[in-house]
């Protein structure tokens, strides 16, 4: 499809008529003079001429980005980078403020001992929000600066436009330019290495946006405020109703809770329990209790055992020491004095006015009351917990629990030895630490 237009062809009045808008009723006016070029080099050279002639309302159309054409056209640097910089800084501020407010002010929550507001933890989100704001702003501001999206532009009527987006180049000088003078412009472009010049007409009056769209726009803008209004209302009012479950899957899982009834099974087993009873005469894996003293630390009559149901040797105590270090020392302290790191932190927080905080300090393990407890009772505390302390049955296997009890006994011994009974060497050693 070679439809090369020669300049003589473009002088043809039919050609110009064709460039008029189809709407014959409307009054036509001169829109622009268009010149066509074959190569990027040619259009670049022509751009330099137009630029030097001082025109402002003009543009070059190329099917692909031509390196260096900005300079040739004398285009000023876009303000887009500054807009994006502003958006990026806003994003960083928003990201950081959001985290600071939610973590340290709105809903303070202690996570693995880190400060409520600590910069390292907040960098990733800040970074992401910065990028998000910058990227969106870059995209939309670019569209805005280019007056896009545009549903109509007089150039779209130009039959050669298809070529300008595939293999030809063009310069368009619009009639609204202050320096525009049809003859002069045509002469300038003819002498600029173009292979064709055309004059483009467009309706004098552009069709306006139908009124109804204004209405739709206003309503849509107002509608976006509705969710915000709801959020604001929710923040400042109280409600007895259960909260709205936005992510249903998490909150309402299709499963039966342990103590809930199950109507489905009722017909089959005649029993409405969600958890079925074990089949008569069977026992679940891992639930077999061979030795009740070992397992529960109790005699048949329910009193606590007073002797260890396991052999106590050095290996057991060492194991106990290690497990104690892992599970108990955070609260009870390495020496069992009840002042582990959790306690230190909690007392510190309480001192600085932790809001509504009540702290029951962990027990001192060498208290006389605890000294007198039988081993079975200590074992029971570790297994099932006591008052404010929770049980560790789920985390610590039976043998390890006994090992810990053995070690607690050792700690108690160590804490209750009278100073007088120590040899000089032992004292020296203790003082050296």
């Amino acid at each position, binding site marked *: 499809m070679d439809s090369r237009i020669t300049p003589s062809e473009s002088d043809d009045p039919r050609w110009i008529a064709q460039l008029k808008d189809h709407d014959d009723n409307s009054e036509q006016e001169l829109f622009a003079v268009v010149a066509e070029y074959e190569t*990027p*080099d040619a259009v*670049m050279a022509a751009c330099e001429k137009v630029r030097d002639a001082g025109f402002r309302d003009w543009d070059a159309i190329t099917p692909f980005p*031509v*390196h*260096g054409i*900005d*300079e040739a056209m004398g285009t000023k*640097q876009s303000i887009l980078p500054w807009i994006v*910089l502003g958006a990026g800084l806003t994003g960083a501020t928003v990201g950081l403020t959001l985290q600071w407010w939610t973590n340290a002010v709105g809903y303070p929550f202690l996570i*693995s001992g*880190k400060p409520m507001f600590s910069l*390292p*933890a907040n*960098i*990733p989100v800040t970074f992401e929000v910065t990028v998000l704001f910058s990227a969106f702003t870059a995209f939309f501001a670019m569209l805005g600066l280019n007056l896009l999206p545009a549903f109509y532009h007089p150039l779209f009527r130009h039959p050669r436009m298809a070529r300008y987006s595939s293999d030809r180049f063009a310069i368009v000088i619009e009639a609204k330019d202050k320096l525009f003078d049809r003859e002069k412009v045509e002469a300038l472009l003819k002498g600029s290495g173009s292979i064709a010049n055309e004059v483009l007409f467009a309706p004098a009056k552009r069709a306006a946006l139908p009124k109804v769209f204004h209405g739709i726009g206003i309503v849509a803008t107002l509608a976006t405020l509705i969710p915000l209004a709801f959020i604001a209302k929710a923040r400042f009012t109280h409600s007895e109703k259960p909260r709205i479950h936005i992510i249903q899957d998490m909150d309402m899982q299709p499963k039966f809770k342990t103590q809930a009834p199950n109507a489905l099974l009722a017909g089959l087993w005649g029993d409405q329990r969600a958890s079925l009873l074990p089949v008569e005469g069977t026992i679940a894996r891992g639930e077999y209790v061979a030795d009740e003293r070992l397992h529960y630390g109790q005699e048949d009559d329910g009193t606590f055992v007073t002797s260890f149901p396991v052999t106590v040797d050095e290996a057991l105590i060492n194991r106990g020491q290690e497990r104690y270090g892992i599970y108990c020392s955070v609260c009870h302290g390495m020496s069992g004095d009840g002042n582990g790191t959790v306690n230190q932190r909690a007392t510190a927080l309480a001192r600085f006015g932790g809001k509504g905080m009540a702290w029951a300090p962990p027990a001192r393990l060498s208290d006389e009351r605890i000294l007198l407890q039988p081993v079975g009772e200590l074992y029971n505390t570790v297994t099932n917990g006591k008052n404010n302390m929770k049980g560790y049955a789920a985390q610590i296997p039976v043998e390890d629990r006994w090992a810990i009890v053995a070690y607690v006994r050792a700690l108690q011994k160590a804490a209750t030895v009278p100073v007088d009974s120590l040899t000089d060497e032992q004292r020296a050693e203790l003082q050296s630490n």
Partner: protein
Amino acid sequence: MASHGIELTESDLRMPESLRGLGGKLMPIGAVIAIIGVALAFVGADSGFKHFQFAYLTAYAFTMTIVLGGLIWLLIQHVFRASWAVAIRRVGESVVGLVPLMLVLFLPILVPILMHDDSMYKWLNHSYAENDAEFLPNKQVVYGAYLNPTFFFGRLAFYFAILIFLSRFFTKNSVAQDETGDLATTRKMEKFSAPAIPIFALTLTFLGLDLLMSLDPHWFSTIWGVYLFAGGMMSFCSLLALLCMTYQKHGALKNVVRKDHYHDLGKLMFAFVIFWSYIAFSQYILIWYAHIPEEITFFDKRQNNGWEWVSVTLIFGHFAIPLLGLLSKHVKRHKPTLAFWAVWLLVMHLLDMFWVVMPNFTSGHVPLPFATIALAVGMLAIVVGASIRSASTKSIVARRDPRLGESMAYHNV
């Protein structure tokens, strides 16, 4: 595309005498500065052979990462069939071709450890490894299978073999094309650059792991190789910009290298400032958050006893300040300001390596940096001198590369 038809004359291809002279002078000057550095290691509070060893390793890590940054830069140009860099590629290649020289410069590190000096690499000492293995049972495997002297030296030989091969392959072929003008050479380099990149990446990672990470055998970080790559690439681009400016100051490359090339180098410097920070921060936050004793020691050392000031200097000097400084296009297109930031980043890269290596020497305080600085400056001067010397024996532009015209006419805005 839009080649404005620049014709290269013979004088554009040859290195001016004054520049060649500078190259010749730089090597002895560098050697003298390095010797001063050696002497400085033996004065002051921390004086001694051990100080020399650590300072030398810092300087070496600084220079080596720059040369290897150059190698990966070159591979990336080829794999992307990049045209912009063709005009400055030969200048870069003259640095990349120096991997054999880096092997020679490695000897002062290698010889003592070959003679069973374990003051830098503690694990070379048998009893250390054994005691430690008892203390940390899961490290036993590491000491036995990986960190043992025989395997260590074997690996080093292997890394250098790979690196020398890669650097030779790409520099030799490029020079060969000057004579033949063969398009197949370009295609061969492009094709081979793709598998070369993962090979290089693994080599750099393991080299960094063996030379730097094993200084603290308890510590490990899986992002280590990337960290070194980021710093190296940033510093190489800085060095390349400075080299091109030096060439031009002596009248070379004046029709060939334009603002647009500096602009692109500046963009790479800027990008790798950010990339380094991104990697450094990723490494930091994971270790900080998990707070595992084995890992946290690395940052613990660097946050106490004065090292915290070095760390803070890095955050600002290696990230925040150059980030803002290099942001503007005008800075990147203006030679003097770009030169300023290039020097700045090189200094920061040296500080980074100091921060990586030196806490293993004295974690209790920050040692005086003068020995390290003199050694690093000396070594860099030797490398730059050698690169100019090696460039002087051939055309200073890859003159028959098919994309040269495009590169010279390249516009950036």
